[in-house]
């Protein structure tokens, strides 16, 4: 870079050192100006609202009085909210584990196919990820509909009694997880497939010559090579799933008896629908510590990965 600039500049009569310095100064000014819109978005629409949320959560319902941690105390005392915490964690952890396992399995299966055929299959399997989740969940809602359920119709062929998908709390929880897994597993599949393709073929050849079984190849070659991308994907998905709103809103809307609410849908119910904005802000802030911890690990993983690639 320095060579290029010194070659370009001698036309000017200014002494070289000064012009270079001025150039550098000008360059950083331009660069700064170019990032101003970005900083406005981050500052004005992310950092400022986040700080504002913390302030809001310390107010009383009418937002006239400072009540400290009162909202958090009330929430933790309520049976419903403790159920929300349980359901959020249960939902996120179960769904992410299932998505990761199914995605890993499908990526492996795709990787076995000849390269030509992979495209077609990949294209088909990624469809759930492409449809906006609020809309595809409508389809699932219709499939779960008690009297017309097309899933129960299939189950009836195998003489399985009708399942009360959205009527019973545990079935409703399972339904929400099913829809989330259906929507998210293709994403894992694509990520793992990309990672699998980046594992050098020679490693497998070497392992095969050493007489490794397919399980050993998976355990000692594939998994160590993919460790980083697996952890990034899992952590990232944990954030998104934990903060999920669309599926719960459309499928159960928190019911039956507020037992399937997650943080996001409960915050919406309390903050926007019931009009208690400070308490709604407090509900969504409960997500923050966990997200911060996960984000820290994601960032570490991404940095490590980009160092490896350099």
């Amino acid at each position, binding site marked *: *870079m320095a060579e*290029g600039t010194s*070659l*370009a500049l001698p036309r000017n009569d200014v002494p070289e050192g000064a012009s270079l310095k001025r150039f550098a100064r000008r360059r*950083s000014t*331009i*660069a*700064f100006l*170019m*990032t101003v*819109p*970005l900083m406005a*978005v981050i500052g004005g*629409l*992310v950092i400022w*609202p*986040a700080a504002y*949320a913390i302030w*809001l959560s310390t107010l009383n319902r009418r937002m006239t009085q400072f009540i400290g941690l009162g909202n958090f105390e009330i929430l933790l005392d309520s049976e419903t909210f403790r159920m929300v915490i349980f359901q959020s964690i249960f939902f996120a952890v179960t769904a992410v584990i299932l998505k990761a396992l199914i995605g890993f399995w*499908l990526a*492996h*299966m*795709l990787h*076995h*196919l000849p390269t030509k055929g992979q495209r077609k*299959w990949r*294209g*088909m399997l*990624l*469809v*759930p990820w*492409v*449809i906006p989740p*609020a*809309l595809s969940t*409508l*389809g699932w809602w*219709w499939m779960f509909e008690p009297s*017309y359920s097309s899933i129960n*119709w299939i189950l009836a062929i195998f003489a399985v009694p009708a399942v009360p998908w959205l009527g019973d709390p545990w079935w409703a929880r399972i339904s929400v997880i099913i829809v989330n897994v259906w929507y998210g597993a293709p994403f894992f599949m*694509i990520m793992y497939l990309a990672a699998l393709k980046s594992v050098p073929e020679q490693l497998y050849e070497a392992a095969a010559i*050493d*007489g490794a079984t*397919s399980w050993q190849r998976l355990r000692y070659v594939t998994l160590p090579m993919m460790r980083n991308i697996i952890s990034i994907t899992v952590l990232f998905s944990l*954030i998104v799933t934990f*903060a999920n*709103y669309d599926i719960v*809103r459309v499928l159960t809307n928190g019911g039956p008896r507020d037992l399937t609410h997650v943080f*996001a849908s409960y915050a*919406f119910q309390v*903050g*926007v629908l019931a009009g208690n*904005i400070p308490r*709604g802000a407090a509900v969504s*802030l409960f*997500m*923050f510590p966990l*997200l911060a911890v996960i984000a820290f690990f*994601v960032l570490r993983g*991404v940095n490590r990965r980009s160092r490896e690639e350099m």
Partner: protein
Amino acid sequence: MSATTSNRALPGIYHKAGSLRSERRWALWTAYISLIIAAIVMLAPPVYMFMTSIKTSAEIADLSGTPWWVRNPTLDNYRALITNPMFMGFMWNSVKVTVLVVALSMFISVLAAFALARMRFWGSQWLATGVFLTYLVPDTLLFIPLYQIVGGLGLLNSTWGLVLVYPTLTVPFCTWIMIGYFASIPKELDEAALIDGANWTQMLTKIFIPVALPGIIAATIFAFTVSWAAFVYPTAFITTPSEMPLTIGVVSQLIRGDTFAWGQLMAGALLAALPPVIVYVFLMDYYIAGLTAGATKG
């Protein structure tokens, strides 16, 4: 591995080679069987939605046959939606918001990514990390304070409020992947341009944007799909049907009372999902490139 052990293992290799082939054939069969099952499960909901959308209400209510097949296909549901001014209003709102948000976020993120990838300045490293961290902040954490802020600006129940807040969903990720794409452009190119006396604007428009075009397409697709599918913000900010975009419009307005017009609801959901699906079908490789770029720097 020493030479002696590999020599001794030679017969073993030949034996293995035979079993390797049968192992591979077996693996291929497992692969096809699992993929067929997966494809059926993955495609069942959209297919069923389509089946329902071309049924008459009478056929939907009729429980005698299989619900997975249609006997008297009809396009009435689609016709009803296309002639419904409310539904077309949702469509128009979605198009308006999405086009504005995509243009705005690409402008912001290409400029910022160029600056962050190529021109160092005080705090640029921190800003790049900050961009990634903002990408990890979910919309459900911010919608309540944003509800207050947008309300304070008088933009509740207005598509402009959506145009204002959607960039929080799109800009961080677009900037992040553009930084990756720009950083992968060889430095020799900018040096050559500088020697030829190009200024920064020319460098961006004549070199970086054309060379990183795949990245720009991937980022644009991402911004498009995200703003088209956005659900939390419109649900929170918009309650007047005339200002609703498609996602919340279909979910809240096509469901009326206790008797659901299932056929029309499914037709509406499919029509609303069509634009991202079309983009995906034609630009699958860019779509996937954008998807996988998130975990790495480019």
